[in-house]
């Protein structure tokens, strides 16, 4: 399964990443090699099986439903790139407007 230019552009769009035109050929080539490399997993013998692996505890611990202080030593205005009248401010949503 080789990687095409359109594949890179498609995932770049999904990942909201600008990719410069001049970087594209190299990215296509490098991603192609990586994908070819990880495709080795096709060689894992089909008969091999093991119980599903869960990193960490086998089950999640639930938190009691209690309100606790935020733990913020500084409010959002201290770290936001643009914060106006209590809101994070961004440009208009353009084509996303009205989406979920």
């Amino acid at each position, binding site marked *: 399964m080789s990687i095409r230019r359109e594949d890179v552009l498609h995932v770049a769009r999904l990942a*909201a*990443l600008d990719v410069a035109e001049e970087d594209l050929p190299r*990215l296509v080539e490098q991603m192609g*090699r990586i994908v070819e490399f*990880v495709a*080795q997993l096709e060689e*894992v013998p089909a008969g091999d099986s093991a119980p599903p692996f869960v990193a960490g505890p086998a089950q999640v611990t639930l938190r009691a439903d209690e309100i606790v202080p935020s733990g913020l030593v*500084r409010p959002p205005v201290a770290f*936001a790139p643009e914060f106006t009248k209590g809101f994070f401010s961004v440009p208009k949503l*353009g084509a996303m407007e009205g989406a979920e």
Partner: protein
Amino acid sequence: MSGVGMIAEAVSSGLTTAASVAREVGGRLTGAMPLNATLHWSQALLDRQAAALDALSPAERVTRPLAGVPIALKDNMVTTDEPTTCASKILEGYVSPYDATVVSRLRAAGAILASKTNLDEFAMGSSTEHSAYGRVHHPLDAARVPGGSSGGSAALVAAGVVPAALGSETGGSVRQPASFCGIVGVKPTYGRVSRYGLVAFGSSLDQISVFGRKVDDAARVLAAISGHDAHDSTSAPLPPLALEPARHELTSFTFGMPREYFPADLHGGVRAALDRTAHALQQLGATIKEVSLPHARFAVPTYYIVAPAEAAANLARFDGVRYGPRHVGPEGDVQALYRATRGHGFGPEVRRRILIGTYVLSSGYYDAYYRKAQQTRALLAEDFRKVFVEQQVDFLLTPTTPTPAFKAGEKMEDPVAMYLADIFTCSINLAGLPALSLPVGRGEGLPIGAQLVGPMFSEARMLAVASAIEAVVDAVGEVR
């Protein structure tokens, strides 16, 4: 420079002051500037932490197990008093409004947070060359890499600037640089140390890990930062690690040497150093046997699916909306803001991994890559379980890395070659097991590390065993 235990003893007994430790550390940090291992530190902040410690009553000081111990911190753990950049332009100038759990625990233990250290951007890399703030130099040979991604922390410990430092592991990012730099690197069991406040890379693999000059340095710091944390769902419900006394003989122990970790083309010096270590273990009374981890060759490809997939989602939050610098695209709408902010902010390796991670999760490819990788991951974990449980092996002994430290630039153009630097370490992260690397000799002047791998939550015994090896193996002698 003294070790963790001696400094803590001296400061808590009043033999020396935290202020004098802080001044000395500041001097050494200044001297180590050519390594480019630190991203943020200031004498003022060192002095302020020291003054707070010195203001404690002697009775209070003795309750601090790391009183006055300077510890460096990889710059992907958030701190309220210094920036946290992950060596990325996308977090340039960001100062966290909360402390990571490990940071709170180090502060409570009386440690002095000495410096935030350089890393591969977002911990993605094996050489600390992928930093937006320049590469870190190997302390013994400036033309070589210190390993990565926790290369800054490793270099500071190896250069004697601090006795211990925190790094983070996703696929070997502490053990590999520990091996390259000739120091000790301990990667605990997944869940042993809270990840709260560690900027996530591959969440199911990430684990905060410790560098020490000696096994004891790393062990004491690990004890201070470990234990359950109610802020991390993946944190194990266990108390802090209780250390065991060092061992002087290992008669009841069986060590397994997996044949897959000793390929025919293994670097000669590495092979010789491991042979010498195995011999030393036998001298201590241990039994050595060859074992097999049949799926080992699939570890790196599995890792390079799981880690980028998780990373692609973990790095989605860096969007220029709530924090970090913002770039505005020509279209002027919010999507353009995302694309430009992320396009400018992430370096080439991070971009590659985000794209790969997005690709393997995307519609039509999920089963072939991500699902397959999860299945293989279970097989890898099962391989280890069989060796530890069915074959009753206490610990595995393997090389940490296939070669000593390589030259800067050598693998920058070939991502796959760089990924193979993790070949002996990343399966341990995939299985969630504890492991450590300790120096067992040098080849042509460059340090070589041996790796111990144990079953889940076997750190205390593993550290005791490592101390026994440390006592008998010449860590800086040439091997042949």
